[in-house]
């Protein structure tokens, strides 16, 4: 579905991504993990058309995304849940959601958008409860759900998520991951960028490890989860495992 070959991205003269090849097949949940500054967010922004300085190939449904504007890419079926959620805090939950369907209202698909709003509110009942509340008053987990819901309002076939677990308590991280699995079950293809490698790899089909703008490892998520290198580099900070089974 999404096929990236030899992608190189630049911020001015600085090269943030140096020749990455990566693919997401239809129906897959792919995790892209790596440390700060590895180039994960850059890659997502490039796919969404937010970054225009790049070389290589990005094909979505066998058509190149080169030179496409973000709104056009959204219309083709790619939505981003940005890092830090980027909601509109003073606006109501409902209005935030409706903004996600912006391009569809422009195409006068009001009926469809209203149906999708129902679907999203069914998926996140808590958002229905708080639909009139200002988005800024929601808790972190609820805000993340709202950000995902807003992305879904564009009816994407490929959903990109940038660090959805950031700043969330462990049980909320699990909740968010469960939602992703549920969305995958409903036929949405997902590319998940995470620093929380364990949470991401537990739900993903395959994973890529990015280091200094290059892929240094790829494979089935289960293999990566068990991989010593990955454990040391990205799972190392979780000491719980050391204490598990000691008591």
């Amino acid at each position, binding site marked *: 579905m999404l*096929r990236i*070959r030899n992608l190189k991205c630049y911020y001015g003269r600085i090269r943030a991504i*140096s*020749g990455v*090849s990566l*693919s997401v097949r239809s129906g897959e949940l792919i995790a892209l993990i790596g440390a700060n500054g590895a180039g994960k967010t850059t890659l997502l922004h490039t796919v969404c058309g937010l970054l225009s300085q790049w070389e290589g190939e990005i094909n979505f449904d066998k058509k190149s995304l080169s030179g496409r504007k973000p709104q056009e890419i959204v219309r083709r079926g790619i939505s981003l849940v940005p890092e830090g959620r980027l909601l509109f805090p003073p606006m109501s939950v409902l209005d935030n959601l409706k903004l996600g369907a912006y391009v569809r209202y422009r195409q006068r698909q009001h009926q469809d958008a209203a149906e999708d709003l129902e679907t999203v509110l069914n998926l996140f009942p808590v958002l229905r409860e708080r639909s009139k509340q200002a988005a800024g008053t929601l808790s972190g987990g609820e805000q993340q759900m709202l950000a995902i819901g807003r992305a879904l309002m564009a009816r994407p076939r490929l959903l990109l998520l940038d660090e959805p677990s950031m700043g969330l308590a462990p049980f909320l991280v699990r909740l968010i991951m469960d939602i992703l699995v549920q969305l995958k079950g409903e036929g949405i293809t997902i590319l998940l960028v995470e620093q929380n490698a364990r949470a991401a790899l537990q739900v993903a089909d395959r994973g890529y490890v990015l*280091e200094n703008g*290059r*892929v240094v490892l790829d494979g089935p998520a289960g293999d990566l989860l068990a991989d*010593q290198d990955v454990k040391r580099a990205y799972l190392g900070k979780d000491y719980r495992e050391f204490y598990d089974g000691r008591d």
Partner: protein
Amino acid sequence: MPIWNTGEECLDREARAQQQIERLQSTLNRASKNVPFYRNRFGLQGMDSLEVENLSDLRRVPFTERQHMSDNYPYGLFAVPLRDVVRIHTAPGMTLKPTVSGYTKSDLLVWRELVGRALTAAGVTSSDILQIVLYPGLANWGRDYKDGAEAIEASVIPLTVLTPEKQLMIMRDYRTSVLITSPSAATQLMNLLFRANLNPNTLALKTLILVGQAPAASIHSQLEERLHVKTWVHYGLSEVPGPGVAFECEERQGLHVSEDHFLPEIVDPKTGEPVPEGEEGELVLTTLTTRAFPLIRFRTGDRVRFLGGACPCGRTLRRIAWLPDRTDETMVIRGVKVHHRQILLLLERAIGVMPKMYRISVKHEELRDYLEVWLLADESIFSDEIKEMEKVVQGIGSELTQELGVPVTIRLREKPSFHEN
């Protein structure tokens, strides 16, 4: 015939190309990050691993040869810290130093998968009793075949050092249905069977998997006719990772290379340039998923050619025809590779000086294949007493047998009728 991993073995060409370039790039990145040998070689070419954007870029990467394994003995080519390595294999090398290769936990899983695939393609199932008969020089493969056969839940009789007679007895009494062995060992067992006046129908054997050397077509048909079995050929690497790199499917039109784990190229052995599509040349392999012991453009010395067209079995893995004769000086005895240079170095160590005159040849006898080494009986070996000389000769012979993992017979000559060193 069932397919072990339909998703991977039948992936469409376009997705395969993407998978290979992704895995190739991450392998090159890991190799240049973790192995100084590869980093230096990329550097010598004035290239960075990231510059390989397609398969023709790969052609600029220098070859890895068997010599490099000896040069980097023991752990120089490992790409992971030793604490991640769970198995260390020793195989005969080109020099006195053996070839060392390592496996991580995930590498072992990959090999189980590869062997499981190859066995499944030969129709082996969980109801089979599978016997492994290989010479000590291929002991590593014995382990990999055992693991792979266990993965498909066959009953395995692992590699055990026994006389051919005992192996035959086990084959008959344990009701072995699948035998994994080298073509020459299979021929010997067959001869032994007929010598003992045993009817092949008293055996439960139905599948014969031939490994280690490219069998001539005549051996194929002879074994099939006389033993009433179906034969299948597997291709593997003896020095490094292991068996089951390529395998025959039920169509038996060439061997499918497990391209999701290996990238095959075929080059002219003299120039190193790729040969035109469909022509024969030397097989060059690059590992795509190996963690502990990645190989970048490894020259196998095996002569192959690509077969075009789709295979009716449904697998999209490219096929090669594996041809007898090698592209280098290596000799293959009972599936075990023996290097000319290695023999000379062993002789030098045993005698004390490099032999001035010698002749090395592979002998085929009805019941055993062996390596024959003729030496000039000069002052370095000569002694007044016949007993002394016999002892020396025997000592050299058993030392070589030990080191090479194949039987070696030493013969002496007084007058040189062979070429000089």
